[in-house]
């Protein structure tokens, strides 16, 4: 299964959700696979932070569906978040773990899932996230996206994808700061709230 194909399948199901995603090749892929979600996606270069940030966003906006696009390397960096999700049971958080069994962005050395003994979905279930599944084909992935985006409990799908990266796509040029402003202004506009307001004059 190919990550870009999975992204296109997921993208087709998204409308007013907010997305936080992980580092590496998936950034440019998501930028192209979901052009209508660019402002609604926070592109972060932060191993181990993606699902915790998405959970914090889900806590702050309980009426809004939040999607975390995490990775095997990112999730293994901070497995504790699975236990926190198990305890807190957020009703509006869908987590996709792109599991390509390697640290693809630095050339592909294996992660701990490569030896076929470590199962992130099983770890999630053992942490109290009942709806934690593995998808190895596109139809199964699509079905989990449909269920995960409608679930009233934390829902995780570990997508077993190849380590290939789409190279024939447009690169995203913005950095983390610009991405944050774009994302925050989108949240402000769609939620009719102020997050980063005007400065005081005193």
């Amino acid at each position, binding site marked *: 299964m190919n990550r870009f194909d999975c992204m296109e399948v997921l993208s087709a199901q998204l409308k007013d959700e907010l997305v*936080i995603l992980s580092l590496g090749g998936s950034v440019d892929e998501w930028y192209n696979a979901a052009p209508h979600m660019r402002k609604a996606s*926070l592109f*972060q*270069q*932060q191993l*181990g*932070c993606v699902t*915790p*940030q*998405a*959970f*914090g*966003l*889900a*806590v*702050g*906006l309980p009426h809004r569906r939040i999607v975390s696009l995490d990775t095997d390397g990112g999730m293994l960096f*901070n497995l*504790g*978040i699975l*236990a*926190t999700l198990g*305890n*807190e049971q957020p009703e509006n958080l869908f987590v996709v773990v792109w599991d390509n069994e390697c640290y693809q962005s630095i050339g592909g050395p294996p992660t701990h899932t490569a030896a076929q003994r470590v199962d992130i979905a099983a770890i999630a279930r053992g942490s109290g996230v009942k709806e934690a599944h593995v998808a190895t084909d596109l139809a199964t992935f699509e079905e989990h996206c449909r269920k995960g985006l409608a679930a009233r409990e934390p829902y995780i799908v570990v997508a077993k994808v190849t380590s290939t990266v789409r190279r024939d796509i447009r690169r995203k040029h913005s*950095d*983390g*700061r610009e*991405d*944050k402003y774009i*994302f*925050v202004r989108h*949240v*402000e506009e769609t*939620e009719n*709230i*102020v*997050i*980063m307001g005007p*400065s005081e004059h005193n």
Partner: protein
Amino acid sequence: MKQGAVDAVIRGLKAAGVSVVCYLPDSLFKELYPALDADPDIRTIPVTNEGEGAAICGGVFLSGKRAALVMENSGLRASIEPLARMGLGAGIPVIMLMSYRGDLGENNWWAIPHGITMEPLLNAMRIPYRVVRKEDEIETAIHDAYEWAYAAYYHVAIALSGEIVR
């Protein structure tokens, strides 16, 4: 921690608009955590390590709500990686309230590293901080921390020490 200090922290957090607190419990703030849990206006989220708590607080910031990361100062060491990436890489602030383990007066050998590393780490990260040792200065410190963090969009820390935590 005396009841007066617990009350001052909670009043300060509420006055600053905080509605979410992530924490990993420690001994010096022992009385604070159940009080936060019991407060109907504050959602507490116990975390497995303080770095996870920092990242959750960052996500809460993006929602427009206000969060605090409450912890022992040893948690700063566990938080440095997400703090560096969120703060310096994206400008996502985390406001930290920590107990100052290892300050002068410390009588536990295992807490000495916390005291020795806290201020140099905060300085290395260019995180402004205030060490508060008087109960009547807690609320002002918390207020000032949020004012600064929401002007700079960068992390800030308050360390409680002295009679407040002894």
